[in-house]
């Protein structure tokens, strides 16, 4: 019966009259995209070094702001890993000298406003979001937290409890394990980007540590403040000058040099018996966005492991049905090497087959280099979607803040477009040749070894990674 229905449906399709004059998509006109020069934020630098960006956006009655402060978890002592995570939480929850965090919660929530703190590897953040009419009230809270945080002990204890909970749960989810172990392989287990909080390192953090961190980092010359929303720039500038102008400059923040010591190429295994899908990550050290190869790398990444049209998606997912998620590329970051990675998930029973299929894709790049047409598609994709980098005032602001933070030129996005346009097939072949080598990859597998199609050791020597969680100090390893 099913078959008959299919044939019937087929007939119906064939009989539909061609109503349209257009025979195919190629005949549809694509007019020139209208000229668009997104509004740039106004940059102000106070004499104390604080950098401010003001971006007016009058569409909605909202005002949002974000202060990004130099220094993050990559700079915390290894024995206190988790310090900046706690700082990023308790900065806000611990309240100010004048008000507890709970009082701030009440004050803000009735205005549907938020003031939140957060931490990242290279910075910490304090942000707000509010309805325009509440700006004065909310900005006061923001400024008070910036200048007079209290880091109350009860909220430190609360944040530590949450951190302990996160540690105890970190091996529950395959993707979490894969992301963590992959970073350790690519950067080295002791690298500040790779190390993770432990019961002992979180327990070691004191209130004095948080206060000292704040004192050292939150100096006007370490701050980039961006504000977007329904305000008048001249009035806002006057207010900010009045608020922050007399804040004396502090010592300049110095980043420490970071060592990147990738693991040896080879196979690394995390056995996990409650899954039926293996997470595979092939990694090595990537590069920086300031690298002149960056543009060719972006084109390569798009063509090799980017979207639906990429080789990995087409061959591993569409043609072989081996994965739902598959992708990869040469990772880049602003001020440190990114991670080159090829990632996929496949059923336990095709783990080794999948690794070999990925190897074939890497080899295939040598025997069948990316074609002119694949490279054209990738460049078209990047250039035609380029406008989505700045299609809202908020995005433009965030880009500018990032360039300021990392010392990139303010017109980096324009340079990016020009750089992509210039990429030739030979450039892509060159970066592929330079960065991607099968025998340089560390291959991580998180999976259920009992169900593998072949033992991982059939591919080469395997290092089994110990991911057991060190128990809290004074407790024995339990269940």
């Amino acid at each position: 019966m099913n078959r008959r229905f299919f044939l019937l449906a087929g007939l119906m399709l064939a009989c539909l009259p061609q109503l349209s004059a257009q025979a195919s998509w190629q005949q549809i006109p694509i007019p020139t995209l209208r000229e668009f020069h997104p509004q740039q934020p106004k940059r102000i630098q106070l004499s104390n070094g604080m950098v401010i960006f003001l971006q007016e956006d009058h569409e909605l009655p909202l005002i949002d702001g974000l202060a990004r402060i130099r220094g993050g978890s990559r700079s915390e002592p290894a024995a206190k890993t988790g310090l900046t995570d706690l700082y990023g939480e308790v900065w806000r929850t611990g309240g100010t000298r004048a008000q507890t965090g709970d009082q701030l919660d009440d004050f803000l929530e009735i205005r549907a406003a938020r003031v939140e703190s957060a931490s990242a590897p290279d910075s910490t953040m304090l942000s707000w979001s509010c309805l325009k009419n509440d700006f004065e009230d909310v900005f006061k809270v923001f400024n008070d937290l910036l200048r007079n945080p209290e880091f109350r002990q009860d909220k430190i204890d609360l944040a530590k409890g949450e951190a302990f909970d996160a540690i105890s749960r970190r091996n529950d989810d395959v993707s979490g394990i894969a992301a963590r172990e992959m970073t350790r392989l690519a950067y080295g287990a002791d690298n500040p980007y790779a190390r993770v909080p432990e019961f002992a390192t979180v327990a070691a953090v004191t209130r004095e540590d948080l206060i000292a961190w704040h004192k050292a980092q939150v100096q006007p010359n370490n701050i980039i403040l961006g504000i977007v929303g329904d305000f008048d720039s001249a009035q806002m500038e006057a207010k900010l000058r009045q608020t922050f102008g007399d804040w004396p400059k502090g010592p300049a923040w110095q980043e420490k040099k970071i060592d990147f010591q990738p693991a040896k190429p080879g196979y690394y295994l995390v056995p996990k018996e409650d899954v039926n899908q293996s997470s595979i990550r092939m990694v090595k050290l990537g590069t920086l966005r300031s690298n002149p190869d960056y543009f060719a790398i972006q084109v390569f990444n798009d063509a090799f492991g980017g979207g639906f049209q990429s080789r990995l998606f087409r061959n591993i997912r569409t043609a072989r049905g081996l994965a739902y998620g598959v992708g990869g590329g040469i990772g880049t970051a602003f001020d440190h090497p990114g991670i080159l990675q090829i990632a996929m998930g496949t059923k336990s029973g095709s783990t080794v087959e999948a690794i070999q299929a990925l190897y074939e894709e890497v080899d295939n790049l040598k025997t069948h280099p990316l074609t002119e047409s694949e490279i054209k598609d990738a460049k078209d994709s990047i250039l035609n979607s380029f406008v989505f980098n700045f299609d809202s005032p908020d995005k433009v602001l965030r880009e500018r803040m990032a360039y300021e933070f990392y010392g990139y030129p303010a017109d980096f996005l324009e340079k990016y477009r020009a750089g992509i346009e210039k990429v030739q097939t030979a450039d892509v072949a060159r970066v592929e040749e330079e960065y991607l080598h099968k025998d340089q990859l560390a291959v991580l597998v998180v999976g259920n070894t009992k169900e593998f199609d072949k033992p991982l050791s059939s591919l080469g020597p395997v290092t089994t990674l110990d991911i057991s969680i060190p128990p809290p100090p004074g407790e024995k390893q339990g269940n």
Partner: protein
Amino acid sequence: MKYRVLPALALVLAAALAAAQDLASFEKRTTVKKLPNGLTVVIGERPAAPVFSFFTHVDAGSVQDPEGKTGLAHMFEHMAFKGTDTIGTTDFAAEKTALARVETAFAAYLAERDKSVGRDEEKLKTLQKGWQDAIAEAQKYVKPNEFSQILESNGAEGLNAFTTVDETAYHYSLPQNRLELWAYLESERFRHPVMREFYKERNVVIEERRMRTDSSPVGRLLEQFTTAAFQAHPYHRPTIGWISDLISLSATDAQEFFDRYYIPSNMVIAVVGDVKPAQAMPMMEKYFGRLPTRPVPDERTTTEPPQNAERRVVLEDPSQPIYLEGYHRPDFSSPDDQVYDAIADLMSNGRTSRLYRALVRDQKIASDSAGFTGLPGTKYPHLFAFYAIPLPGHKPEEMATAIHAEIERLKKEDISDEELQMIKTRAKANLIRGLGNNAGLAFQLGIYQARFGDWRELFHSVDRINKVTKADIRRVASQTFVPTNRTVGIIQTVAPPAGQGQKGGVQ
């Protein structure tokens, strides 16, 4: 503390004024048209940047999966990226014949495979080979992923789709000069879809199931929990599909599902961005007007009967404990819908929420706790659920006790003026925050138009939350949160199988 009272009053007035202004200003920029074939188009003008986003809402989700064919709605969603009779093929006439052979071969294989008595293993092997050979033959005519490739090369951003129990939706963004190209491609996709590469895509979907459900503790719990909570209504079936159904689905099934449910009157398309209705509407009429009208399918579903005994699902799992409980509630069109929203907000939103303050801040037994509505969908009667993540050393049972104490408070005591005000202000602010983004707005306009037949409900729902009273909250809590109406889901930690992740060293 006086700031808490006076500004609150001022806020009520400000919020009420602004809601009316928003709707008035939106009405000027929003155009709706129902095409003669029944398809509804919503155009929202937001000309700030030369881009647009769209959201195609199809009023068919996994609830519509036929019995024994769970996962079919989602499977079709994947097929909608496979192209048409002109896109993705080198020779459609030949491909069509080859695809028909694949179906014949698969049906023969399936018939033998599923024999419970007298299955001939040799014959099965031959039939399987015949089916695989037919697939290889049809593959010769395929231009893989051409549909997506055209879109990506033209600058598509966020190209994706999703299927829920209630609906299937397709969405992405493009530069504004590609509007006609989009209208053509999006209409072709639902005019001449071709079920090519179906059986490989089925394997992709099975991998998706392994990732989201089988290999994820939360996925495992939610599947068991939802299955237990619904016994009669199709909400008891997973959208991703049961594995035995997935390995039996055919391209014919997917085509049938499409023919039955992807009818113009089941579709709403919302476009938001740098789009002028005077130019865009004729374009939409030209392309989407071509979709043929078909009879409206029989949409009868079993109504879940009242639950009269608590149900419990305890999953013994190597992962850390989780506590979840759900209560049946009426569907989205219930006059109490906003009362449930208010309860969810009160119990869960931010650090002033009752569950955070009780379980996380004061009792220090959980790292997180919240209540939410809409599990697993909203179109039919569904669940209002609560969960808590126990801190190390605390048991799921403690979570139950603490959550029930908060529920009892809801029933017995009126919430405070400040809390009620907070809920209403937040509803308004959340509405405003959602308006500044093409993709988000297309999603909202599309879904409200589809559900209520009027996108304005997006604004009216905030007005209705403004009318929620303290008595409403006590009444609805008392009606809903009773033990016999409850399903409990627990992850109970058991020791992982021996040898897992214990030892380092070289193998």
